[in-house]
């Protein structure tokens, strides 16, 4: 009896969290419907209907379920199902507005494209299949930007913020969703930690919006807010087809660089900077490594662009530094003004593109909104490699792995190694599947690395001045959408959710056989 009750409670907690997340997304949809009404009004009905439907489903789940203690194996399925739900219902505005009903696209293609755009938005990837940036109304385009913002900090973190009763399960929920191998606990109360993270996130977004607004000569608050959503979430969507290249402005690019790079830094650090009124960044070894990586990559790329691509030194610096900041922080904005312009990195020499590919793999810092393997994990991996060398010389030596001054526990070391292995396997498997579904090797490899690292633009045909609809077939786009969600949740939750369901299925089959 007790076991049955526990199962019921677990199920209700999962649905409860999904309900809260959907309700939060519906608020954003409603706000964008209002914006649409105030501007062109083209897609207002679609947005309003989507908001209504999402609010209805979310509200029902929220009100009709009650949370309780949550078992570890169900934490991962809770997070995974929440993301599946918001991705599916988040595609509604695009489907209802017929955003992708261009060029004779059938209903399947529209559905696939909407799902892809939604997955790309919520996972803060920024890969797009949108070709026509003029037709959708401002509300719908803002909703597209808003999906990034929701996904950046994470809807589960948001749910935990309004669930004061989750306790320990709450922290594990945050850990399962938050980027990085371990999550910071800013306060003893988990819900308070989640709330503080959202507060600093909102503050960061507001600061970015103000900076963009000022850099653009106070011309468009809409554009400023749209890009602020992107840089805060390290997403990559822009309301303009040529992204930041639309402005062709050094000031705007500089603001974007600063906020993209800072978006790739732990939000706990940002909180400490605000709360303690000090600058804790330089004391953080991960931050130093992150900056060093970006600096080294930018230097190599600038030299290659200058010497090999024949660009002027000024253009090389501008294109190189912006692209490194964009891909190094897993944002994916571009300063290319068109195909073949200095910022169009698919035209760069292979060496420079390979540096970008490596940056896509590395990603930003732990606890940030960025994707990739993360700097902290890369440092642990490097230490594992060095330790294996040291063990070959001193086989019985006990060598702890340190990151900064801290010794990393062996369980975390194993977790990081396991994560890397799974990441590597997913890259290989993903590339194989995407090429099998139609795509050349470089485009497929770039897209898979980009999807798993939540970058956005990839290489070759999926570069910054192209879009994924041109480069990949519909099934390949679905696979990439799935990889984006897997990458956003850092692999484990999705795989464990599948494992958990398989385990349950096996147990059920065994019980039936008996």
């Amino acid at each position, binding site marked *: 009896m007790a076991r049955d009750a526990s199962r019921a409670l677990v199920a209700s907690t999962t649905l409860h969290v999904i309900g809260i997340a959907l309700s939060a997304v519906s608020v954003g949809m409603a706000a964008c419907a209002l914006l649409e009404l105030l501007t062109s009004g083209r897609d207002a009905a679609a947005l309003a209907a989507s908001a209504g439907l999402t609010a209805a489903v979310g509200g029902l789940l929220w009100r009709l379920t009650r949370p309780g203690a949550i078992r570890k*194996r169900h934490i991962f399925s809770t997070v995974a199902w929440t993301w599946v739900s918001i991705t599916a219902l988040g595609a509604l505005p695009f489907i209802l507005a017929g955003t992708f009903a261009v060029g004779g696209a059938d209903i399947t293609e529209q559905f696939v494209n909407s799902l892809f755009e939604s997955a790309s938005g919520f996972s803060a990837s920024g890969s797009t299949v949108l070709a026509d940036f003029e037709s959708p109304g401002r509300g719908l385009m803002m909703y597209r930007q808003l999906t990034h913002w929701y996904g950046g900090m994470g809807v589960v973190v948001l749910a935990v913020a309004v669930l004061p009763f989750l306790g320990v399960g709450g922290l594990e929920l945050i850990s399962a969703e938050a980027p990085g191998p371990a999550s910071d606990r800013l306060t003893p109360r988990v819900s308070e930690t989640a709330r503080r993270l959202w507060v600093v996130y909102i503050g960061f977004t507001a600061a970015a919006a103000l900076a963009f607004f000022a850099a653009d000569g106070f011309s468009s608050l809409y554009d400023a807010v749209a890009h602020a959503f992107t840089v805060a979430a390290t997403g990559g969507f822009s309301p303009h087809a040529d992204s930041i290249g639309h402005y062709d402005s050094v000031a705007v690019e500089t603001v974007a660089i600063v906020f993209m790079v800072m978006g790739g830094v732990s939000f706990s650090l940002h909180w400490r900077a605000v709360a303690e009124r000090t600058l804790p960044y330089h004391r953080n070894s991960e931050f130093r490594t992150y900056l060093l990586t970006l600096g080294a990559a930018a230097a190599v790329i600038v030299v290659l662009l200058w010497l090999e691509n024949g660009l002027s030194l000024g253009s090389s610096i501008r294109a190189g530094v912006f692209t490194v900041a964009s891909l190094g922080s897993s944002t994916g904005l571009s300063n290319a003004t068109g195909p073949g312009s200095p910022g169009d990195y698919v035209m760069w020499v292979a060496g420079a593109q390979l540096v970008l590919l490596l940056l896509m793999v590395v990603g930003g810092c732990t606890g940030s909104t960025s994707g990739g393997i993360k700097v902290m994990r890369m440092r642990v991996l490097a230490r*594992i490699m060095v330790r294996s060398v040291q*063990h*070959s010389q001193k086989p019985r030596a006990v060598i702890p792995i340190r990151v900064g001054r801290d010794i990393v526990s062996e369980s975390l070391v194993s977790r990081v190694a*396991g994560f890397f*292995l799974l990441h590597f396997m997913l890259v290989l498997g993903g590339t*194989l599947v995407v090429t099998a579904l139609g795509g050349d*090797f470089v485009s497929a490899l770039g897209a898979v690395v980009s999807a798993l690292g939540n970058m956005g633009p990839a290489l070759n045909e999926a570069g910054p001045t192209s879009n994924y609809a041109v480069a990949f077939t519909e099934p390949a786009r679905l696979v990439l959408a799935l990889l984006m969600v897997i990458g956003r949740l850092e692999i484990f939750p999705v795989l464990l959710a599948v494992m958990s369901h398989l385990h349950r299925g096996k147990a059920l089959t065994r019980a039936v056989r008996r």
Partner: protein
Amino acid sequence: MQRLAVLKGSGVLRRLGRPRRTRPLLAGSASRAPVRIVSWTLASIVEAGLTLGIATMLCGLAGLGDDNADAITFTLVGALCAALAAAARRRVAPPHRPTPGRVFAGIGLLWTVLVLFGAALYAATGAVDRLDDALVESAAGFTTTSLTLLDAAEASRAVLLFRSATSWVGGLTAILIAVVTLPTVLRSTALIGYSTGRRGLDLVPNAAVGTRRVLVLYSGFTAACVAAYLLTGLGVTDALVVGLGTASTGGFTGRADSLAGYGTATQAVAAAGMLVAGAGIFVVWWLARGRLRPLWRSQELRAFALLLAAAAAVMAAHRGIGWGEAGFMAVSMMSTTGFAVSDWTAWAPSATVVMLVAAGIGTMMGSPGGGIKVMRARLLMGAAGGELRRQLDSYAVVLVRRDGETLSRRTLDRLGGHQIAYVVVVGAGALLLGVSGLSLAGSVWGSVSAVSTVGPAVGEIGAFGRLDNLDWAGRLALVPLMMGGRMSIPPLMAGVGLVLRWYRTGLRRSRFAARRSILKIKERDG
């Protein structure tokens, strides 16, 4: 006192008091003359030099009547090298228990010396015009990578045979290091991948017997390959060139289009030979002894067969790729030989990705081929699965086994370190190739192919492993990649580690000396 008496009785003290004992690397190399130099590195270089000298001399002798200048050069240099090695063998011996770091550094040095010797010969005969090209050609040969700059139609018989002989010697050296040297010399300190487990005890009861057996098995297998090629109608030179290339997974042939111009029977023999070579010396040992039980029970062999079948099936599922072609290329890639029967780089991208993965995984333990190795890949999968299970249950005890033996956490750690190093080397290699002017696909493919010692690659290198489309920087960039892949990375890493340690020690000593001299000066000045 009681303990001291026990130690005296057991002979421990007596043994401790004895001078350093030495042990032969090869069977029958026990020297009666007084040993003057005890060095693992020198001893291994001498042994390899003897084999290489004899092989070079034989290549020269076989080349007589075709291009006599080349043939005489090879004969004389080979004879000189063999004589010098034979003379040095009496004076040099390996230490009884060398430290792991020195063994790894020695392995690195051994490969470097082999490659330099080959390069010098290529340059001396004029087979390759430039010195850097000679280095690339030699590195490709000794690392059993099927990359070449030689025009097979214009090269003399001696040169063609020498090129295949370098890969044969390279293959033999790789097997001896993996199967005999590291497990027996390092004993309990053997790294995963070198520790051959229970299979090793059977084939290699001790260094001398193990070396003799490996030499006999490897030579016998090569002879069988050559005989089979002769039966398919190949000429003696062709049969020797292709036979040496098959047994060593070197992949050199006497033509520019690899095996595309040969008959079906030759291609079938090549596929069978590559399969056995990729399966490794243990499988040859079991087959030679007629022991089917270990064959059946080997998890690694089952995984190897399964992966091969899967790769072939996926490739054959593509339009325009026949089962025969798919099977041949799957074996060629997994055995890291690099033979080709057609221009497979024009195949569908997904088929080439399968080949890339197959090349990355590579052969079984104890094979002259490269790659991560099937056993390591299997264990890594197990470790990743175990980590997933641990996420669900923090207290879960997850065991990763190899042929019934449970691996320790430390072993798995080393395995993880090896895999990370492999990815780092491949990434750095791709970057080097990219900077040197190769396309993106060519850089990634070229790096994986070179580190796995395959050779052919999508892009500028092509299906037949030609380096003509690469400039000098691209060619030279391939040398460290091939060497790193051949050394199976840990020796390379350990070598780098040792060099760094020497550097640090040297730095500390020089600082200490400087401080002491400053103090002396201060004392002198009062």
